[in-house]
């Protein structure tokens, strides 16, 4: 492709975000990176979606589908259930240990939603399209999850 790609969004930035998204789903760094690259390759095959929110939605949709396929390929026992530990946890994370524990208590769907909205800054409209629910449902769920997290954190502090 001559002169690179003329995209509405910064694909390099989205690469990191898609990687995070894949990572929290498959819990394996290398698989997550493979899936991220596959996502971008598939995305680039569809040039007519390369604008604005369409780009985001398509990227996440492809990534999600690939992660689902990955689930099916591997048995569920192979996938670690908990949050990453050891080398995957950066230094200095200890201060957010309680938050990490609180996150671990959340159902997977809630963690996914938190990551999409607050870590990857995906617009609610894109999330609603991705999950097949209305925007108000996404907002309600986010509100409930953050409230649950706060309650969990307060509980742990008291203990």
């Amino acid at each position: 492709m001559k002169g690179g790609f003329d995209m509405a969004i910064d694909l390099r930035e989205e690469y990191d975000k898609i990687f995070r998204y894949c990572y929290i789903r498959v819990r394996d760094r290398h698989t997550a990176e493979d899936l991220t690259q596959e996502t971008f390759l598939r995305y680039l095959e569809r040039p007519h979606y390369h604008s604005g929110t369409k780009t985001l939605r398509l990227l996440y949709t492809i990534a999600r589908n690939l992660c689902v396929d990955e689930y099916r390929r591997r048995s569920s026992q192979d996938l670690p259930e908990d949050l990453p530990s050891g080398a995957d946890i950066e230094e200095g994370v200890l201060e957010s240990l309680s938050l990490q524990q609180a996150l671990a208590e959340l159902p997977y769907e809630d963690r996914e939603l938190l990551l999409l909205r607050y870590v990857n800054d995906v617009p609610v409209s894109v999330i609603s399209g991705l999950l097949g629910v209305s925007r108000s449902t996404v907002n309600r769920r986010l509100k409930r999850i953050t409230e649950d997290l706060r309650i969990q954190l307060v509980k742990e502090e008291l203990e």
Partner: protein
Amino acid sequence: MKETEKKALEKAFGLPEAEHKEEFFQKLGYKEKRRSPVIFITRAASVVAMAVLALGLWGHFRDSAPPREKPTNSDIIAVTTAAEETAPVTDQTTASPDISKPEENEPSEVQTTAASGESPSTRTVAHTTRPGVSPSTLVQTAPARTTSPASRAASAKSTTHIVHTTAATRTQIVTTLPVTEPTIIDLTLEPFQTCEKKELVVDLAEIIEIIHHDTQAVDPQGEPAPKGDLPGIDPDPLEPTEPPPVDPMTDKEHIIVCAKTCDTAVIGEVKKVYYSDLYGTPPFTLVDLLVKNPLKGDIGENTLISIALLGGYYDLCDDSQFDFADLDDIYEEYGTLDITLKDLQGRSDEQDPQVGDTFLMFLYDNGRNEWFSTNYDCYSVIPFNEGTAHLGENSFTLDQIKEYVNS
């Protein structure tokens, strides 16, 4: 959520960095967008140049265009008899007609006679009947004007009929000005990608049922084992065997809730139906609806809008989330992958609109959804026939619906 909380959350997720990003983009040949000032200057200069060119062209055409005549009356049918012998049909033929104004309080009547005083047999009369309306509002003394074929073609709403009354002597030119044809405001959007509704349709409920049957325990006689009585497993006495009773919302409550919470409520006729065929998205149906009766919101009558309804038809083979391994029974039955899944998941009323159907729809403006190419999303689709909306076993009159909407 505050920025500090977001940072803490990101940290708590313990997300690693991608290792091969640069390598990947290098292989792809992806370059970051250059935001050099030269590009901006070049772009700005080209925009200014285009604007100057456009202004110049506009000025040129404005100066060279012939002066326009005032528009003629749009309420009456103006009929002109041109008396010029063997007048060329395609030329602009003008006559100076005598126009007799009708008497007051009588049906207005316009008589336009050729200036050369030809026999009355050639006179043509146009009638408009508007009792009680002052004739002065109906009759305008605009000069009789005919349109050339070129301008006729350009005018969408006026038609000119050229009638030869006698073999080669007289040419009668009749200009019919706009009839009260409703103007349709088209706000519809084209879907990005659609698929055809296939004849061979498998209902998702059917598929789920098949899978459900496969996973159910079966007793030696081949009958499904009753729930909570699986072989070798004692039923948990604490676990309720039946789901707790749910008090369903009545149809009336459904309509009232929709009427109160929607942005827009319309009754309209389905003009077009598209089914989605998009990679990885939930299937949806896009309906182009011609609004016949706006009940709530800003949409006016005769507006054509696009509405996305969740659920529709798409090829199973396009659905990467669908586990084909579970569908052996269907493969055996149909022997092909080229089947279409009817998926009405998420659509509470499970309506499947067809062209020509009339529906009462409760809509909400969810922002222009580029993915679905739609003006509105939909709360509810309710069939509407002969002045009555039909939901479940109940019917609701138009007056009742208006009352709910306005309450």
